[in-house]
């Protein structure tokens, strides 16, 4: 599935992709969505359960502008 299609179908969800294709700017161009959930912890659980061969995790939606991080 192309990224534009994924964006429309899985808005505001975390998605786990396999068979990921990346463009030259390292943006996801396409992949197969094997799981989606609004909570990223659930995506990690599924990642460890399925162990896809070529995967990525992405949030489909807008990241809050006011996110504040201190690591």
């Amino acid at each position, binding site marked *: 599935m192309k990224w534009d299609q994924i964006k429309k179908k899985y808005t505001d969800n*975390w998605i786990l992709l396999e068979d*990921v294709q*990346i463009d030259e*700017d*390292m*943006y*996801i161009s396409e992949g197969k969505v094997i799981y989606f959930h609004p*909570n*990223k*912890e659930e995506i*990690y659980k599924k*990642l*460890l359960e399925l*162990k*896809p*061969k*070529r*995967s*990525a*995790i*992405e*949030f489909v939606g807008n*990241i*809050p*502008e*006011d*996110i*504040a*991080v*201190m*690591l």
Partner: protein
Amino acid sequence: MKIYRTRRNGKLMAVRAYLKGPEAEHFPRLLIDTGSTYTIIGKEILKAIGCSLATSSRQKCIVAASGYMDIPSVQVERFNCLGQHLENMFVLAHTFPSSTYIDGLLGMDFLSKYVLEIRPKSGDIVRCRIQSPSR
């Protein structure tokens, strides 16, 4: 010269990287972090690509905002980011809160190897071909 457009996480900048482990490959999203000595990857991702944390004999003592932490260090077969790749790179394994929207940190152990211009206003990272002389 190559310009990479980062994805903004609020005021922060993140890029997609590539990891290859013994069993699988993953493309984590990493925060550009010039304040981190090491590149750090989420534990779940390292486990999923077959890097065992349990058998890791290397630990690094890290000074974080919350105090000192001993963090396992594991070797990935291949690491690629910003058009550069490294073989058998050591990365640290840690858990990141999901609210950070990232899978790890791209630290100075990687960034300092290359001539990169980080442009916080535009969110671009420019990779220059000319390498700086060793110091």
